């Protein structure tokens, strides 16, 4: 039978402490008693951000929020609301947070249960190319509120109080950055949106801009008002044509509505935004390299200080924030810093967006409150590892991050906890690795990327990553030597210490963290010439077992002509000719080919 109602119960810590789980049990009992178990489904959500009013229950359709529930309320909700169809006004609470709108549409799906959409609040529910859609959901109200009711100092104080930290990865307190830029005397000042997303497998910024470009425009305009800048620049990579098209249209539409340009909404405040396209260099995500690129120079970093807040674009004070950071700003201004602070952990407030990819059932773009554990993300949101395989590691923070094995699964997501575990928050790449992947090979993949993207300015990064990569390639080819791991560790330590920018300082992380957490895999490769995941081509061979029925499927796909045998009899692989491409392994219908 199709469910008529879907109930979400907040399963955040505060609600559990005020008795949410008891209510859940009681609700199930009551539903069964009324014969409604089939018609009403129950889901649990992560913290809904209304802790002081817990326990919280949301009834769909209608998104009626009930709060402060006690056990005697449950029979009334079941009878009045679910059976008779009359929502109970006495128990309903009016919470018009911006993020609620997304959950009116998606709140009943399990995938979104543990999520909380603050920055992606409009992604997937509005037409991104229609400014009316954005305006109808209180769009640009935060900007209007800022320029009507708040002084620039008050805007900065609100951002500072919210506890928001830079979402590009480093986690610098956003409010402090704004304060520093505002305090500079030199003019003109600039505001930059860093949309140079370069981590392999990451697509947070692209989706955010494609789904809700006006949020970025509004956030930047508020930033401009706060620090005293009249010009904003969106730096976005040219590989994102649709995102560019949509942010361009958003800027034009905002201009046409008097929300950008001279004298915005008659307030006397003027601000406009232009777009600069990046050619897709990873290093240009580093703020000083990005600024050089906008200026038309080669994208290379320079030493800091001076920080861009003092000496930035064209030598002027510049406020530079990541896409996701900007998207938080309208929410902080409208819903208030006090509310924003209720979401997240002590030192990391709000939510974080992750591009969940790799060996996980539900790959996708997710946004979870800070403090959610890796286990909750991978198993509750991501649905676990497909094909019954076992979890091996999770890689956070893209090529600059580290690989964390199973013992770290209960690590809560926040800047400090991830750093302590040996990885980083990064900008939001999250790749799940299962037993079929070789950790030495994973480290090699990431180092190959950073080595290729090194701008070449600092010798340790330019030469050091190259030497490290050579050693890793050697190990995966079965030519590893005793002492290789120590050499990698020494080189890695040097590169981290002696490089100018984040790229070099973090490039060895993938290697160092895998040596730390998967030392035995390195040892097997070097000493026994063995790859336990059977992923390193040079260390495996294919053999045909007695299961072979002699169908010839493997022989026909073998590009190297290494397989021979007559019809209906067991075939053999000539190991000298075999190039270990694995085509026969995939082609065999009776699983007669073994990787050994």
């Amino acid at each position: 039978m199709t469910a008529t109602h879907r109930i979400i119960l907040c399963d955040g810590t505060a609600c559990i402490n005020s008795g949410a789980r008891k209510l859940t049990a009681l609700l199930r009992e009551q539903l069964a008693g009324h014969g409604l178990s089939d018609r009403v489904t129950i889901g649990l959500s992560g913290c809904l951000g209304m802790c002081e009013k817990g326990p919280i229950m949301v009834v769909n359709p209608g998104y009626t929020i009930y709060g402060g529930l006690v056990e005697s309320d449950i029979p009334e909700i079941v009878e009045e609301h679910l059976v008779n169809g009359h929502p109970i006004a006495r128990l309903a609470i009016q919470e018009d947070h911006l993020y609620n709108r997304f959950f009116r549409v998606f709140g009943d799906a399990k995938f979104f249960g543990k999520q909380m959409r603050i920055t992606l609040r409009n992604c997937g529910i509005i037409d991104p190319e229609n400014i009316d859609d954005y305006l109808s959901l209180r769009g640009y109200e935060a900007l209007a509120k800022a320029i009507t009711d708040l002084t620039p100092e008050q805007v900065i104080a609100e951002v500072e109080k919210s506890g928001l930290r830079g979402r590009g990865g480093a986690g610098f307190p956003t409010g402090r950055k704004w304060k520093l830029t505002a305090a500079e005397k030199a003019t003109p000042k600039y505001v930059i949106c860093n949309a140079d997303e370069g981590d392999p497998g990451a697509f947070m910024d692209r989706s955010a801009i494609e789904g809700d470009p006006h949020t970025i425009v509004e956030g930047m305009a508020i930033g401009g008002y706060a620090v005293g800048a009249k010009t904003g620049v969106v730096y976005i990579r040219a590989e994102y044509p649709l995102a560019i098209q949509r942010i361009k249209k958003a800027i034009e539409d905002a201009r046409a509505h008097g929300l950008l340009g001279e004298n915005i909404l008659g307030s006397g405040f003027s601000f406009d935004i232009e777009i600069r396209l990046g050619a897709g260099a990873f290093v240009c995500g580093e703020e000083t390299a990005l600024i050089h690129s906008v200026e038309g120079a080669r994208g290379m970093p320079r030493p800091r200080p001076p920080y861009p807040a003092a000496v930035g674009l064209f030598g002027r004070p510049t406020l530079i924030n990541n896409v996701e950071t900007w998207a938080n700003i309208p929410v902080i201004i409208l819903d208030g810093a006090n509310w924003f602070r209720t979401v997240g952990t002590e030192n990391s407030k709000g939510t974080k967006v992750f591009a969940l990819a790799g060996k996980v059932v539900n790959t996708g773009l997710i946004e979870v409150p800070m403090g959610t554990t890796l286990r909750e993300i991978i198993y509750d949101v991501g649905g676990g590892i497909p094909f019954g395989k076992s979890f091996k590691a999770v890689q956070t923070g893209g090529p600059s991050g580290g690989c964390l094995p199973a013992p770290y699964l209960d690590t809560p997501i926040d800047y400090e906890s991830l750093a302590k575990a040996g990885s980083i928050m990064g900008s939001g790449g999250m790749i799940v690795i299962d037993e079929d992947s070789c950790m030495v090979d994973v480290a090699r993949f990431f180092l190959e990327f950073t080595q290729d993207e090194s701008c070449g300015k600092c010798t340790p990064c330019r030469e050091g990553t190259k030497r490290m990569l050579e050693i890793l390639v050697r190990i995966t080819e079965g030519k590893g030597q005793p002492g290789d791991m120590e050499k990698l560790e020494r080189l890695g330590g040097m590169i981290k210490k002696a490089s100018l920018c984040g790229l070099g300082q973090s490039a060895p992380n993938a290697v160092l963290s895998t040596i730390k957490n998967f030392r035995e895999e390195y040892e097997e490769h070097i000493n026994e010439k063995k790859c336990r995941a059977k992923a390193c081509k040079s260390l495996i061979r294919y053999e045909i077992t007695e299961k072979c029925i002699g169908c010839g499927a493997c022989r026909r796909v073998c590009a190297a002509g290494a397989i021979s045998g007559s019809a209906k009899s067991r075939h053999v692989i000539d190991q000298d000719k075999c190039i270990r491409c694995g085509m026969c392994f995939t082609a065999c219908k009776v699983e007669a080919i073994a990787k050994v």
Partner: protein
Amino acid sequence: MPTPLELIKKKRAEAVSRIIGKGYLSTKRVYVGMATCEIAAGSKDVMEVFQKAISRGLTDVYLSQKGCAGRCNLEPTVEVIEQGKNPVKYGRVDKERAQQIIERHLKNGQVIQEWVID
């Protein structure tokens, strides 16, 4: 002289009435995912199927594009939203499924349960 806050509220009211003018209050609202990822999975074709149906006389349906909701492995996604009912979210919608959604769900009010994302 109205304040910026008053002006933006006026703009919102105007925006809402423009959206309503485009048929937002139709019985059913259909949203098709149109981010790069969705388009790569084939959502442009899906959008076309809905557009064609409307131009050929399917009434009381408000069609809109939307950004990515984050369900990468189930794209393209399509939502059918009706006042007072649970929003229905379909996954892996291709041309064929889109046609079925029009025939069965939009015309006959029958939710196609096996394609619904949970």
